[in-house]
């Protein structure tokens, strides 16, 4: 009650002041009147009235204190005082606020990524009840067909609902009545109940209700970009081409709704722009039992645990497989939480993101130490004022509180600025991850930033404030505290610099590696052929058509298709046995079209590559790589030898050089290549060798694929160089950002060092004057200050070395061909630090050397 009355009083302060003033005035007037009546002169009467009343100012003050919240009032007062102090020393304020902005901004930015990728739940109803059904075949992730999804969905009892999604692909879509046509649209085929199971309501219009309708739902971003948020979009049609050349058909789909702005589908890092019901686009999927292209997400029923649901689903899955005549024992069904969405980029970004979070925490620590150093130096300069105030009776707690209020202001300003910087950087950060991410400043990010800001204010404010108000006899203490803080900054900077050095050098090591193919002049197009429903000779002729069309693009030297492709991300394993020997040899398996090796630049060491005639019906052949040749045949010539690979008798017709498969980090494995033309199966990659810049052929290549069959889903088109670089994404991201953070740390540490030295010189002007009067040379004085700076840096470096070694061990998994305790890197980082420290010490040293002895002696 009292507190609220007081708060209300705070709001109507002006009226309370006026009332009190009037009341006191009236009182004094009546009193004076009384004395006048008793016979005093008006002047005497006023004096007497005042004497009786007592100190008017004091009683007014006390009355005021009664009606306001004491601490709040004091806080406001402290903040006002802090603002004044900040205005007085603008240089200090600027440096402190910038330091905090760097520290807090970096933390807010990285945390917003961590939050978006690792922590945030899907923006759907009750996301914690969602699970993904993750089938496995022989221990590898597997997908399900539409009939399998249907059967699972109809016969399960563990879930309130079960949806299927194809994931994100790209399609050429014609928008009817639109001013311009988009290039490629990111699309996703989903079951009719997709939005219902997720619990996502349309932002405008409605979502799907049945499985077969020819309908489309578009994303908010697509609505904004292509239709300018026009509500008239509902009822408009879009056209997609389906089928295979030459039997192409066009399907007209009606837009019925727009998803909410924050909805990005079910996979973190993706963002489809258009959703179609699976059967609305490919009605034949109903019967396509062998097309395993769907992922299934389900909503747990209340009271059903994940374990129970998993047991039931696993049993049902195997039963359905057995009914289909498959071998159920090869398959498994696992349930994993899908609350935060399907894995997407999460798995590969988890460790790097936490590593970056640690790096920015160190930056913040350095920034705090930096501001604390400056505060210590300034508090020491204000020593006289502080002792005076203590002497006249100011409470120590009150003074500490006052200084903390100023720290809070500095941190808040820095935090605000940092938040702005984080907003400005978030697009760039999401781009660094090469993902469609909604990196927002939502509530958790703001709360995190606020907490970091408050903690920082305490961290850098408390120590200097306590030290400044401590026993004035310990005069050397603040300086020593400042020196300690600077040494600490240097030590932490060394950790960041050495870390950045390690990451940069391993990135260089990786880039210098020969991957075993020629990454210049090659264009890759990712494709998905699950929706191609052709078999045997029909399929073969489609594939030949695709290769022919791509080969006819002007500027193309050769074109090929393959199952995985160089650095295609996946891999298939198989076991090889040679005739007359039962020993199985494990090997990777790749299916390749004619001209594959020459297109991607894998040198043939012996024999020949696949020709167009090595097709269905022709004798089975294979090409193997050096590693497999060495493992199976030793030094003998493998050409012409027969072996069994992937359940098929083949003759070895060629040997190629070893090449790294999906990662530069892993040594090449033993590989066997079989002709794609002999396999009657999907392919996942198309390759082109260009005469000039391959990137310019991307549009033509996609068009050629699309023209051959719109059922071929086209993913990204990129050069092989980009593809390899992309596998270095994490390394690049870490190396770049830690380098930036290291540089920031270096600058901050130097500012701290400069501050402490400059303050020391200022304080010892008299001492320096005496020394010079007694014959010390300016050069000697300069050396003296420089030595002090270097000593501080040296102590910091020494303290930083064990810290660096400890931190580097955490980086070990990110390094390549480099030991965490690499002496060259650590030594280099230390050298950089000491050199920069010398530069930072030079200015105060020069100033000290210029002290005029007489002036210095008169200084105090």
């Amino acid at each position, binding site marked *: *009650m*009292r507190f609220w*009355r*007081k708060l209300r009083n705070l709001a109507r302060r002006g009226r309370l002041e006026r*009332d*009190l003033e*009037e*009341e*006191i005035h*009236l*009182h004094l007037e*009546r*009193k004076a009147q009384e004395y006048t009546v008793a016979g005093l002169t008006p002047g005497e009467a006023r004096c007497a009235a005042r004497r*009786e*009343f*007592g*100190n*008017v100012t*004091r*009683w*007014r003050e*006390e*009355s005021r*204190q*009664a*009606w306001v919240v004491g601490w709040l009032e004091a806080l406001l007062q402290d903040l006002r005082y802090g603002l004044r102090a900040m205005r007085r020393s603008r240089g200090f304020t600027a440096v402190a606020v910038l330091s905090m902005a760097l520290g807090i901004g970096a933390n807010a930015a990285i945390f917003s990524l961590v939050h978006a990728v690792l922590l945030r739940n899907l923006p759907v109803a009750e996301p914690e009840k969602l699970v993904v059904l993750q089938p496995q075949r022989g221990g590898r992730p597997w997908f399900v067909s539409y009939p399998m999804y249907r059967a699972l969905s109809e016969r399960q009892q563990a879930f309130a609902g079960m949806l299927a999604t194809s994931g994100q692909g790209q399609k050429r879509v014609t928008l009817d009545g639109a001013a311009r046509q988009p290039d490629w649209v990111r699309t996703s085929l989903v079951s009719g109940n997709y939005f219902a199971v997720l619990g996502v309501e349309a932002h405008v219009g409605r979502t799907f209700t049945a499985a077969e309708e020819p309908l489309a739902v578009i994303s908010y971003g697509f609505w904004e970009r292509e239709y300018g948020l026009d509500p008239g979009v509902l009822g408009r049609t879009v056209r997609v081409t389906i089928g295979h050349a030459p039997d192409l058909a066009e399907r007209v789909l009606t837009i019925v709704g727009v998803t909410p702005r924050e909805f990005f589908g079910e996979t973190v890092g993706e963002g489809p722009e258009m959703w179609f019901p699976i059967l609305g686009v490919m009605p034949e999927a109903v019967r396509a039992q062998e097309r395993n292209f769907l992922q299934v997400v389900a909503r747990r029923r209340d009271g059903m645990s994940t374990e129970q649901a998993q047991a039931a689903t696993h049993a049902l899955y195997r039963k359905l497989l057995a009914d289909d005549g498959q071998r159920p024992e090869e398959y498994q069904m696992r349930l994993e939480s899908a609350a935060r969405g399907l894995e997407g980029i999460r798995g590969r970004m988890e460790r790097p993101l936490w590593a970056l979070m640690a790096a920015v925490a160190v930056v913040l620590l350095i920034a705090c130490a930096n501001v604390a150093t400056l505060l210590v130096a300034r508090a020491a300069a204000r020593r006289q004022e502080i002792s005076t105030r203590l002497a006249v009776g100011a409470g120590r707690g009150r003074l500490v509180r006052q200084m903390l209020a100023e720290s809070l202001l500095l941190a808040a300003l820095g935090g605000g600025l940092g938040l702005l910087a984080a907003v400005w950087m978030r697009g760039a950060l999401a781009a660094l991850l090469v993902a469609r991410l909604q990196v927002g400043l939502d509530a958790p990010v703001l709360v995190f930033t606020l907490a970091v800001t408050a903690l920082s204010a305490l961290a850098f404010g408390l120590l200097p404030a306590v030290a400044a108000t401590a026993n004035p006899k310990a005069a050397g203490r603040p300086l020593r505290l400042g020196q300690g803080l600077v040494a600490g900054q240097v030590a932490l900077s060394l950790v960041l610099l050495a870390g950045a050095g390690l990451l940069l050098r391993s990135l260089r090591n990786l880039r210098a590696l020969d991957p075993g193919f020629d990454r210049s002049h090659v264009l890759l197009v990712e494709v998905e052929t699950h929706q191609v429903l052709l078999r045997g000779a029909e399929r073969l002729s489609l594939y030949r058509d695709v290769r022919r069309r791509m080969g006819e693009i002007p500027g193309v030297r050769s074109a090929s298709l393959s199952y995985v492709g160089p650095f295609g991300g996946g891999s298939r394993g198989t076991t090889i046995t040679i005739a007359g020997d039962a020993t199985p040899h494990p090997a990777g398996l790749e299916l390749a079209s004619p001209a594959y090796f020459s297109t991607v630049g894998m040198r043939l060491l012996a024999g020949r590559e696949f020709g167009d005639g090595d097709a269905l019906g022709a004798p089975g052949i294979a090409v193997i790589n050096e590693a497999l040749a060495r493992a199976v045949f030793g030094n003998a010539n493998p050409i012409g030898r027969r072996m069994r690979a992937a359940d098929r008798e083949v003759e070895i017709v060629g040997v190629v050089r070893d090449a790294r498969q999906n990662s530069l980090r892993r040594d090449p494995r033993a590989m066997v290549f079989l002709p794609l033309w002999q396999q009657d199966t999907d392919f996942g990659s198309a390759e082109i060798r260009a005469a000039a810049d391959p990137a310019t052929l991307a549009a033509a290549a996609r068009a050629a694929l699309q023209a051959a069959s719109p059922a071929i889903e086209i993913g990204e088109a990129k050069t092989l160089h980009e593809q390899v670089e992309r596998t270095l994404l994490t390394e690049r991201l870490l190396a770049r950002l830690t380098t930036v953070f290291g540089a920031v740390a270096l600058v901050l540490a130097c500012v701290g060092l400069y501050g402490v030295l400059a303050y020391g010189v200022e304080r010892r002007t008299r001492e320096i004057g005496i020394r010079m009067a007694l014959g010390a040379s300016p050069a000697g004085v300069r050396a003296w200050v420089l030595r002090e700076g270097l000593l501080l840096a040296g102590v910091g470096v020494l303290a930083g070395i064990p810290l660096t070694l400890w931190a580097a061990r955490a980086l070990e998994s990110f390094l390549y061909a480099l030991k965490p305790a690499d002496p060259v890197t650590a030594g280099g980082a230390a050298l950089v630090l000491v050199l920069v420290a010398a530069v930072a010490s030079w200015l105060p040293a020069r100033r000290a050397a210029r002290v005029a002895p007489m002036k210095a002696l008169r200084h105090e």
Partner: protein
Amino acid sequence: MGKERSELLPGTLDMLILKTLARGPEHGYGIAQRLRQISEDVLQVEEGSLYPALQRLQLQGWIVSEWGQSENNRRARFYRLTPSGRKQLAREVSGFERAMQAIVRVLREA
């Protein structure tokens, strides 16, 4: 000022104000007048100290104030006891009397 004046016992000002207001609403100057008259000028307070006390009592909700006309037709702020203020007065008076009796006993016996 022939009479000997005595300092107010600490903590009793609030009680005296409440007691004064128990007779009816009054403004600040009037309260000061009455305190002086009734105590026959013995109780000595700086009149200004009334005002912080009045603010405190208002915050406790024991008295309320409103602006009205004074005897000589001036605008003045009148303070009035609330029911909870009346209860508080009773509590303070009985507590004070107990303490006084105890003090008097000690002074007599010891």
